């Protein structure tokens, strides 16, 4: 619970910053927008109350799923979120998505890059299995370079072991 206000604040700040970045895949946004976590890639977020809006995708459906330590298995809770993501993407073919894989800091740097890639790929495969065209999806790993929560306890680690689906305009549609 203690993280909620901070997350909202972050969202507001990063939302502003990310508006400057028109790149489809958020190229080079590693500094302005930490890991592109909330990167809107220049697209209008719209309202969370509008089921056709990216804001709805990000917040109502959920753009993020979490993983167990050193795992890339998609658990039942994540499955529900990803099914919602897939359905939204199928219904909104004008959007593409890049899936970011992340790891917590309890691992070596290059292994965590590979682990993040595994997680992003697991999400990609699931979305494809739910009918999303593969050419609309790309993956990237940030390893442990862009934590969402910065404490060094399991509370934070659990939030950082994540895959985030960032939608953008147009690719492959």
């Amino acid at each position, binding site marked *: 619970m203690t993280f909620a206000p901070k997350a909202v604040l972050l969202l507001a700040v990063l939302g502003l910053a990310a508006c400057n970045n028109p790149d489809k*895949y958020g190229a080079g946004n590693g*500094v302005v927008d930490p890991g592109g976590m909330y990167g809107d890639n220049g697209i209008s977020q719209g309202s969370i109350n509008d089921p056709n809006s990216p804001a709805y995708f990000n917040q109502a459906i959920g753009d993020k799923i979490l993983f167990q330590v050193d795992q890339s298995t998609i658990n039942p809770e994540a499955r529900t979120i990803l099914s919602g993501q897939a359905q939204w993407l199928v219904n909104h073919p004008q959007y593409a998505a890049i899936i970011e894989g992340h790891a917590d800091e309890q691992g070596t740097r290059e292994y965590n*890059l590979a682990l993040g890639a*595994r997680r992003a790929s697991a999400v990609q495969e699931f979305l494809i299995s739910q009918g999303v065209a593969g050419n609309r999806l790309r993956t*990237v790993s940030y390893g442990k370079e*862009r934590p969402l929560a910065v404490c060094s306890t399991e509370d934070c680690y659990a939030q950082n072991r994540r895959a985030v689906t960032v939608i953008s305009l147009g690719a492959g549609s």
Partner: protein
Amino acid sequence: MITASFGQIFAAAQADVMRRDAETGYKGPRPERGMASMMRIALAALAALMIGPAMAQAQQGPLRIEITDGVIEPLPYALPTFVAETGDAGQMANDITRVIAADLSGTGLFREIPESAHIQRFGAFDMPVSYPDWQAINAQALIVGGVSMQGGKVVVKFRLFDIYSGQQLGDGQQLAASPASWRRLAHKVADVIYSRVTGESGYFDSRVVFVSETGPKDARQKRLAVADYDGANIQYLTDSSTIVLAPRFSPDGGRVLYTTFETGFPRIKMLDTRNVAATLLPEIPGTMTFAPRFSPDGGSIVYSMEQGGNTDLWTMGVSGGSPSRLTNSPAIETAPSYSPDGSRIVFESDRSGTQQLYIMSAGGGEPTRISFGEGRYGTPVWSPRGDLIAFTKQHAGRFHIGVMRTDGSEERLLTASFLDEGPTWSPNGRVIMFTRESPGAAGGAQLFSVDISGRNLKKVDGVGAASDPAWSPLLP
């Protein structure tokens, strides 16, 4: 611009430092002398210490830190401030002397006897040594030097004396460089002294490429930087507009491989240290490439390529050519490192379920697992001597830097902390530098070094927040 001057300085320094044996000094045969052989025995004792605790650990099950220190008494040496032989060399003589002292004492193998305790004072470089004066203050080594400015160059000459045998150890030497390279002159003098006393090559005239870090933990800004091994002369090679990771020097120090997110995805880039120009290496579209390392001949690289979520090791020539696959498993294979002769590669894989270390032929083929202790093992790096492999170990919520033989035996942990990772070897294989990160929201990364005996753990000053160090070879 800071980065623009780097190449010039680096290249100039390489061409600039000339060494020649001085006409002065002892020219006769050089048998093993008291001081040198004593230090060799001391180093042998260190090696023996490494074996002892590792065997004990194997019997006890879980590995514990058993860092033995205080066993070796550092060798006391006297280093009178070098004589300024021209009127304008006073400051330079003082500065060079202090850098030599910092190099020697910084190893933990030498202890300086302060100048205030010296009895004999050198008014001239050629003054005869009064051995009883140095024996009286228990000096075992004496270094006498002179500095002059000649035709725009700094010229340093020095002699090393073995006090107990009452003779000069090795020839006197003279070195010259441009004033901008004065620290390199000092490092070269210290390398010669270290080498004569220990019988091993030195490591002071070397550089470290690393990632300089600024900003909060969730928006860290990273840029490539290079500094002398002691943290001096820091220079930046990239700006902080994108994440950069894990640089490595080429065997000749002229190029640096690293991973950059500048395209939005991890890609390998090669930078020429002479002109600071960098180029992305070719990749197969839709993949991520990272963890690049040069082969010992500098002609090819080994790296990780991720395809469809799976990461394997590949190799390709540095000047193009199609990549060829070295591993083919559904596990993560990364963090490769060549043996010094280029015949084998050590790497990490989680094919057993957790990260462990494996060795395979440089051309690929069936690997042999070498790590069998508890916990996870990653980031293996082959020592320049070829005898040891340094690694990061994770066990019971702690991180360690350790070393083991290439067959996995005689494992020894050198450090323990919240997060230590990414060892790199000094050019002589005696010291390991690594990243130590502190925990929490305000946590940050710093560079540390430690002897392979586990002694002399210390922070590398002067580089600020930094990670992913990679040591250069000894400079020419």
